[in-house]
């Protein structure tokens, strides 16, 4: 498990750098496996404490079990939870049938932007991984976003050794990615090794399906799988050649690239 410890050491270092340099720092928590591991790593970095707020951008279309899990873990671990929602867009009737990219942009990207602006966050920690999809492979650990939350992936500042971009002009913010080097298998191996409580939507409960990636209910479909334990998930992942996010509709076509350029997580 040495490789997991190495990944952990790097992520912890990044989290501590973020905590040191950003006065108004928050961490995104979608209750999925990645951001839950990130949350666990924060407890590692800060010796059992989570000294920063956790943001959840609630689209109102999440699977209900995710909300239950969120509130229970927040209570048990004493988390400071901040829930944001693009109420205007919802009131105007935004939903996935109006176009998935439109819906994601309104409810997630803009929901997050509103929250960042409202609270004045200058650093946002996210659980994105380089192996998830193409645009994320280009990310830095500390990735600047301009005043509109946009990402200029063609002209990113250099990142050298363990020195990150921690200074930025007013009005802009930095996205921080401590899990960039982790793979999907690493996430599950670590969940197993540390015995991290995770949401059981990832397991097959008898109908031969499970979620491999969690998002909004209408746009996330379970995969065919009989994995009922973490070990079985790991075994399944070791042999699959199907992409992790194949059940995520937003990835179709140029979806993710367009979304992320405009500030999607």
């Amino acid at each position, binding site marked *: 498990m040495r490789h997991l410890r190495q990944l952990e050491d790097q992520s912890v270092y990044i989290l501590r750098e973020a905590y040191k340099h950003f006065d108004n720092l928050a961490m995104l928590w979608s209750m999925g496996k990645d951001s839950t591991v990130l949350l666990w790593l924060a*407890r590692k*970095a800060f*010796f*059992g404490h989570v000294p920063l707020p956790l943001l959840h951008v609630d689209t109102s279309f999440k699977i209900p079990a995710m909300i239950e899990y969120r509130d229970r873990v927040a209570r048990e671990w004493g988390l400071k939870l901040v829930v944001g929602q693009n109420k205007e867009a919802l009131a105007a009737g935004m939903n996935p049938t109006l176009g998935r990219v439109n819906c994601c942009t309104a409810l997630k990207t803009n929901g997050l932007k509103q929250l960042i602006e409202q609270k004045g966050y200058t650093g946002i920690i996210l659980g994105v991984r380089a*192996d998830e*999809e193409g645009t994320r492979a280009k990310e830095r650990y500390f990735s600047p976003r301009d005043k509109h939350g946009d990402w200029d992936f063609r002209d*990113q500042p*250099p990142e050298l050794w363990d020195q990150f971009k921690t*200074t930025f002009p007013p009005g802009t913010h930095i996205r921080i990615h401590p899990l960039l080097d982790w793979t999907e298998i690493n996430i599950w191996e670590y969940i197993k090794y540390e015995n991290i409580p995770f949401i059981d939507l990832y397991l097959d409960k008898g109908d031969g399906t499970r979620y491999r990636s969690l998002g909004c209910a209408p746009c996330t479909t379970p995969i065919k799988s009989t994995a009922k334990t973490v070990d079985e998930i790991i075994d399944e992942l070791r042999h699959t050649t199907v992409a992790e*996010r194949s059940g995520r509709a937003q990835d179709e076509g140029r979806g993710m690239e367009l979304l992320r350029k405009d500030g999607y997580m």
Partner: protein
Amino acid sequence: MVFLIILNKVRTMDNSTQKPSDNLNIVIVGHVDHGKSTLLGRLYADTGSLPDGKLEKVQAICQQQGKEFEYAFLFDAFLEEQEQGITIDTARTFFGWKGRQYIIIDAPGHKEFLKNMISGAARAEGALLLIDALEGVKEQSKKHGYLLSLLGVRQFAVVVNKMDLVGYRQDVFDGIEKEYREFLGQFKAVPQQVIPVSAKLGDNIANRSEQMPWYTGPTVLDALSAFRKEPGRSEQPLRLPVQDVYKFDARRIIAGRITAGQLKVGDSLVFSPSNKRATVKSIEAFNVDPLPVEGHAGQSVGVTLDEQIFVERGEVASHQEQLPLVSTAFRANVFWLGRKPLERGRRYQLRVATKEVDCEVATIHRIIDTMDLAQQQGSSVVNKNQVAEITIRAKAPVAFDLSASFEATGRFVLVDEYDIAGGGIVTELVHDDQEFLREEARQRDFAWVKGEVGVEDRAQQYGHRAAIVLVTGGRHTGKSFLARTIEARLVADGRHAYLLDGGNLRRGLDADLSEGERGQAAEMARRYGEVARLLVDTGLIVVSTTNPFGMAYVEAAQAIRTLVHPVPVIAIHMSKAPEEAPPNTDIVLSGPIDFDAATRRILEELKRRGVLAQAIGAKPTFQYSI
């Protein structure tokens, strides 16, 4: 026995679809068009790391558009990179081979290639450097080879690509190998392997080439398999740069990443440059039972100490036997990536491990021409993508090492405005004029006999930290009057303050000094600094002027700082007309002075710096504390 080993080897050669857990960060560099994308595409295809149907899909698109399929097309994660619009919609930046995942840190194809190459290589544990057999060693081949060495990438293989275009001739390969090894030898870099390949046709990538029976070395994938995960940094002397100090609960935890060596519970640590010492009481960790008793290079740790010493981010913990270097200046090799050129005399932020301090470039010795390393080329600026030898001078002492001995504490970055604009390695310590005093302070602090009452205890009792308020300036500017006003104000407020006039030492402690020694002020400043050091150790706020040092006040102030380090020195400069203040001055007062207003300003500064607690009697809240 022999058979068993062979059988085992055959079995591991079969790269089953099982995805491994171990991983290695690698970067692929080389001159433009020497085949980086093709090699990557080939590596993915030959290791079976592509998702189902991906190869076929890209091949079909090529056929549709009536052009030849190329492995390079497999590697375009961004649509914009290929006008044709062929892309891979899932990231394929990992490929697996023989029980290990290889992470390609940065895919090629960016406009700002060098910047991305450097960012990638700085994270890499290994590298492949490509040279086109037909074109031979080009400018970028040399530059990238030099930069790999500068960035500390010691494991790399040189891949001589497009051997098919030179008829797989051994003499062509041998010529390139000889030329390139000679170049690398100038800065003592040695490649693990030099491999002749054709990425396009798959020669010597996963499979041995039948076209080049004269080559008996490893394939590219074999060479990668031979890269080791971690160099033996744990065997080096300990270096633990302090990242932060936490007080989330009853524990006061010094957090940081061990960059070299190891530490154990019970070890005595020295923090440089403050020279503070303490013993490791515990190594703290979450969800680890029982708690660890030792830590090794690479680990992010947190330790508690047996006493509450004042240490802050940027200091480097080590064992007393093998201390890091401390100076305000060092000589270095840098590469510059900034939009604006690196200029002599301009202010930058220097970051060495966790230390962040303002600095300037004192000298640009020469620009290094990576085509011809020996060439001397003077310049007053270092332009983007250039490499140079420079001397850096920091505003405060920094703990560091030479890069030849230590990786993490031997390198640094320079921040220009908001961005990291360059990086480099420390090649030489440059002695500054504080060196002797610093050494004196270090030896004195190591031998210091301490009582039971610590700095923290005194601060809690007094409601303030120890500090020095130092008033500098020329004659008849009102320094003494201001110093007396500050002392009176502090004492009236219930603080423990004392006016230490340098003149008071003249007839006593300095009585043995000759007229000549008094004229130079150096020895007087040293003695004054040591007395001040004693007083601040008692927890006092010492108020003083540099009157007795005459016009040598700049040097005297510097000497006092060195001797009382790390106690905060709040420096106030007074002058009748605006003039340049000494370095590190906090408050500049010129022209007619309102002494009450000036005193209020100084008290505010003391609060801001965390010397004074916000309210008398309340538990002090110190900015830099606990």
